């Protein structure tokens, strides 16, 4: 009992005041996840925001804790793929790409193919998949774009694909056709047909 009290007092000393919106039991679990993440060098703000999202949406404590834990794990995976120099926005976008189905190796390839920040490239990848583009196609296209496209180009590409999809085009085809028309210069294929595994761009 005393140990619990002492433990709680220590946690109160370090916790973010915003977490007071959580009930005590949930709060202490979330705090321990956040503290571990911090100790591992991962950003804590996304974890706190995830907890706050859960509270605002009326989710039960265990669900909130599970979501925060899952995010912490995924942030770690993203960091493993993107490197310890990755910023918090890059890690968050990396998590989105991973959860969309891109493998860690795609993230690593992207890091090798493109100058930081990678936030927008990763976000476009995740958002393309959300729109229905098969993850392998989306990955291949973004990787092909990666060396030369500006962030603004990637955003414009994604918008164009979404427009086509809203007009009735199958997502995979929409992405491939757009990529072809954009004239991606790549030492591999100009566009990878949907369903085929991506080939990594050859290194200069």
């Amino acid at each position, binding site marked *: 009992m005393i140990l619990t009290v002492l433990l709680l007092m220590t946690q109160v000393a370090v916790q973010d*005041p915003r977490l007071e919106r959580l009930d005590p039991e949930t709060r202490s679990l979330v705090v321990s996840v956040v503290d571990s993440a911090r100790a591992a060098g991962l950003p804590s*703000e996304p974890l706190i925001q995830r907890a706050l999202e859960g509270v*605002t949406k*009326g989710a039960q404590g265990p669900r909130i804790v599970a979501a925060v834990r899952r995010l912490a794990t995924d942030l770690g995976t993203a960091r493993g793929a993107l490197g310890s120099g990755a910023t918090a926005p890059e890690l968050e976008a990396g998590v989105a790409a991973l959860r969309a189905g891109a493998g860690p190796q795609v993230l690593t390839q992207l890091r090798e193919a493109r100058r930081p920040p990678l936030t927008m490239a990763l976000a476009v990848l995740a958002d393309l998949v959300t729109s229905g583009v098969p993850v392998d196609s989306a990955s291949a296209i973004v990787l092909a774009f990666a060396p030369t496209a500006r962030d603004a180009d990637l955003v414009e590409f994604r918008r164009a694909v979404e427009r086509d999809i809203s007009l009735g085009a199958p997502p995979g085809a929409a992405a491939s056709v757009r990529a072809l028309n954009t004239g991606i210069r790549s030492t591999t294929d100009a566009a990878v047909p949907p369903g085929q595994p991506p080939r990594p761009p050859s290194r200069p």
Partner: protein
Amino acid sequence: MSQPLGIDSVEASDAELVRRVRTGDIGAYSTLVARYRNRLGRYAVHMLGDREDAEEALQDSFVRAYRSLDRCDDPARFGAWLYGILVNRCRTSGARAARRRRMFVRDADALNGATHADQADRVEWSDTVNRALARLAPEYREAFLLKHVEDLEYDAMARLTGAGVSALKMRVKRAREQLQRFLKEAEHV
């Protein structure tokens, strides 16, 4: 254990808001701006005698406070610190405002001889006060406003203005004397 969806946010303290801004939540600063806008606006309007000048000074002060937020040593006293920035900003605005005031006083003098209906008495009194205030030397006006309108203690005023307490007391005294004189003159026109 789950929270109701329509959560009312407990109003965050200045210190909490400053903390949030410092960790990147720029939006938290807008709460501080809304919180202090009218209070500081009152000082700026009376000090500068012109609403447009006052809003400009206010905007500049808020932006400057944001940019130098890491120099706010005590976030719990953010308001007082912000005040100091505004007081200083109003001093540099003085030259432009002085030209406007001279124009205003001239126009108002032209109206002095007219008789006024009862409904206009309040406006008339407000004009009288503003004209009298405008005739004060800036440092007297500043001291008078900080002491009597903004209710600052002399110690706080000394920190804000950089002047000594006895100098400030003298300025407030002079301001009162001059205001009395100006108001009597207005009454006798």
